[in-house]
């Protein structure tokens, strides 16, 4: 590959990264005057242009690495820099590409919100953090950006912080993400202990340190250092934990459905390109680190998450919740793909998923927006997010229906869409991987097929319920299409959801330019039959499921009892929240209560007691001092005073008085003597 002739590329990339941040800062400075979002949109558009330029320069070429010394600790210099390879520039392009429509959409969607100036600020920060994350050239910088992404998402999820549920949700997201952050930090620490550097290129290059390290005699040996081999697995699992939390995999997926409390545009951004993509991106970035055990765990978690979330999505009524579980499920696909070694397919799916999921959310947002409008107009009290209150909207919102249908088809994996390509790529790789796996692991690909089928079903259910089924109430016919500020971004994303963006050939995933840019070195042997069979099978399953959904929801031939165990399990999201509540939150709260009580009564009590004892002693001492010591002194003084006072009267200066006293005393002595001798 020819070396790109330009050396200013890192600076261009830096500009792309910093533009949203600058927009955010400007918005922050402008405060309430920046309500139009012009600053933020300009910034993200500029960022998109520069990112596109960088992408065009780097894609398919050798990586560009711009590095500057940051600081020195002892003898160890720390560098900060940008690593621009195919993975990072793809993400670098993807983020503003998704963010720009979201920004435009937000202009209309967030119009009139009293906190909209904050909204632009947070959005800029969010994009900046994610873009910095993808171009970061070392794990430490990546960790910093990782935290920034978490923080920005915290701000955005809790954007409507006056709602209690929003506050709970952003707290939950933040806390759950902290668990993952610990994993990431531990992983980074292990890597630094082993290799002495955090530079991604040095570590994860095909000829990098990680690739050069070997496991021998139960020792993990790399560049003269060694530690027990278990640490290799542990570091992989630690990074996996970070990705699990960030990308909402089981068992740390619980924050994502709750994160729907944020504005819908934010949800679309989180689910498409910024937040959850970070985990998958991280896994792809450090792929060489994972050994067999870690990959196997990753694959199992991914598959389980994909199935579980798809299952949960089946019965949800909240339109955003369905999409949230859909995201979890799709992320499960990606993680499973990485676990099966096909990170190129996973990233491909990440890219296609970014477009259609973003579109789904924006379209759902459009529906919600209009439902709220309807509510306001006619004073209705229907839940704007509940699909049971909708129906037949395709007549009133034909464009929204069209774009959402395209996105749904992409999600369901129907031909001619981007989703078809990436999902089939994943499934094919899964089958190829499964073919060489021992035992039960062979079954994992078939679970993915099942999840794909469930995906087709629940998304068909969503579309049919909202747009096709008979209207729930007559008033719905009064609803109308959204404005062009919201339509244009959706149309753009709909175009991006089609196959043409990724491949000229609508059915052959191997021709997609995107996957060709980053094919892994080692892949399982290809099964030529799978490349034909899998798309056909998957499409057939999807069609079957869509037909089933049609029959159940449009024709009204609903065969299931809503009281069944499986139904309830799905509706309540597997009772995982309740389980966590019981298993983790309640004990922690109880422990906190106990500790608080202990603190209050034992520790504080002891201290209070000591204090009180001290005060008592002091009071006693004070009393002693006042009454015993001082009292004695004062008593002596008083006695002396009284004596003096009494005796003073005798000191009259009258001679006769003295004489009288003298005689009187002599008399007393005499009488005493007399009485004694008598």
């Amino acid at each position: 590959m020819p070396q790109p002739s330009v050396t200013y590329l890192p600076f261009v990339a830096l500009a792309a990264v910093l533009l949203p941040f600058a927009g955010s800062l400007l918005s922050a400075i402008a405060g309430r005057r920046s309500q139009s979002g012009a600053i933020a949109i300009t910034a993200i558009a500029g960022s998109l242009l520069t990112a596109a330029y960088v992408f065009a320069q780097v894609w398919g070429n050798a990586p560009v690495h711009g590095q500057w010394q940051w600081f020195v600790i002892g003898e160890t210099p720390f560098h900060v820099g940008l690593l621009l390879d195919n993975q990072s520039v793809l993400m670098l392009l993807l983020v503003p590409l998704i963010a720009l429509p979201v920004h435009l959409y937000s202009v209309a969607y967030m119009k009139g919100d009293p906190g909209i100036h904050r909204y632009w600020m947070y959005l800029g920060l969010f994009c900046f953090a994610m873009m910095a994350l993808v171009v970061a050239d070392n794990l430490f910088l990546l960790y910093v950006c990782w935290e920034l992404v978490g923080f920005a998402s915290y701000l955005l999820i809790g954007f409507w912080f006056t709602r209690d549920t929003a506050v709970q949700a952003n707290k939950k997201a933040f806390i759950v993400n902290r668990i993952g952050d610990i994993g990431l930090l531990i992983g980074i620490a292990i890597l630094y202990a082993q290799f002495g550097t955090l530079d991604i290129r040095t570590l994860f290059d095909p000829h990098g340190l990680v690739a050069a390290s070997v496991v021998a005699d139960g020792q993990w040996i790399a560049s003269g250092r060694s530690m027990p081999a278990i640490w290799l697995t542990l570091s992989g699992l630690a990074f996996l934990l970070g990705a699990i939390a960030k990308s909402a995999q089981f068992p740390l997926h619980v924050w994502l459905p709750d994160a729907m409390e944020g504005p819908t545009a934010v949800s679309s951004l989180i689910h498409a390109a910024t937040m959850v993509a970070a985990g998958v991106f991280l896994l792809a970035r450090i792929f060489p680190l994972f050994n067999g055990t870690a990959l196997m765990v990753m694959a199992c978690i991914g598959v389980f998450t994909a199935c579980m979330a798809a299952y949960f999505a089946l019965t949800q009524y909240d339109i955003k919740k369905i999409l949230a579980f859909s995201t979890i499920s799709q992320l499960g696909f990606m993680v499973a793909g990485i676990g099966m070694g096909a990170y190129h397919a996973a990233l491909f799916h990440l890219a296609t998923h970014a477009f259609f999921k973003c579109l789904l959310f924006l379209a759902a947002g459009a529906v919600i927006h209009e439902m709220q409008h309807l509510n306001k107009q006619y004073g209705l009290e229907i839940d704007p997010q509940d699909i049971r209150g909708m129906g037949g909207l395709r007549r009133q919102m034909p464009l929204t229906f069209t774009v959402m249908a395209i996105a749904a088809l992409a999600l369901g994996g129907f031909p001619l869409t981007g989703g078809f390509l990436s999902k089939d790529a994943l499934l094919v790789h899964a089958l190829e991987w499964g073919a060489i796996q021992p035992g039960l692991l062979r079954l994992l690909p078939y679970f993915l097929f099942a999840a794909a089928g469930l995906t087709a079903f629940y998304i068909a259910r969503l579309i049919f319920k909202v747009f096709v089924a008979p209207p729930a109430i007559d008033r719905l016919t009064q609803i109308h299409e959204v404005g062009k500020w919201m339509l244009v971004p959706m149309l753009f994303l709909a175009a991006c959801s089609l196959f043409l963006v990724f491949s000229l050939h609508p059915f052959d995933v191997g021709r997609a330019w995107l996957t060709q840019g980053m094919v892994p070195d080692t892949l399982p042997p290809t099964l030529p039959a799978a490349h034909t069979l899998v798309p056909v099978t998957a499409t057939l399953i999807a069609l079957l499921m869509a037909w089933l959904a049609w029959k159940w929801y449009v024709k009204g031939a609903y065969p299931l009892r809503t009281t069944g165990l499986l139904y309830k399990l799905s509706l309540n999201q597997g009772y995982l929240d309740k389980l966590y509540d019981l298993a983790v939150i309640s004990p922690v709260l109880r422990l906190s209560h106990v500790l608080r009580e202990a603190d209050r009564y034992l520790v504080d009590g002891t201290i209070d007691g000591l204090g009180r004892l001290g005060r008592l002693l002091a009071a006693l001492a004070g009393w002693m001092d006042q009454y015993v010591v001082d009292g004695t002194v004062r008593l002596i003084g008083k006695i002396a005073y009284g004596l003096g006072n009494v005796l003073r009267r005798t000191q009259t200066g009258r001679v006769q008085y003295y004489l009288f006293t003298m005689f009187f005393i002599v008399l007393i002595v005499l009488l005493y003597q007399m009485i004694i001798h008598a």
Partner: protein
Amino acid sequence: MESILFYCFATVAVGTSFILVSMRNIARALFLFFVVLFAMAGLYVFALADFVALTQILIYVGGVLVLLLFAFMLSNKELLNQLQAGTSHFFALPVWQALTVALLFLGVLLYAALQFDRHEPQWIAAAREAGTVITPTDRTVQHLGIHLMTRYLLPFEVISVLLMMALMGAAHLARKGGQT
């Protein structure tokens, strides 16, 4: 006869002294003191101390009393005026504390005196046995002179010096003016 005379003297001395101390007018009291001193001199004679009685009369009546009168006249002009004008109250009201103490002392002394017979000192009995009691026929003045010049010479001299000092001091004190 002798007892009657003693009782007369004793009565005069005691009664006059009682009247004396309770008298309001000092000039009269001083003259009564004169009587008391004479009566006391008489009682000394009954104690077979003629020289002492004479000395009493010479010194007290001739010196002390005259001094007292002079002092009285020099100091108590108001009282002199009172004396000339006559006073409405002959006796002063008794001061009860002083009276109490004095009477108690009197009681104690009388008790002791009346008990004296039973507790007579041994030397008195010895003197009575040995016949070294002064008898009315003794020439007491001669004996006194001999003793003063022999046995009591030192006290005599000391007292004479003391007397001189006292007289000098009195003279110094009595000088007019604040010269030191």
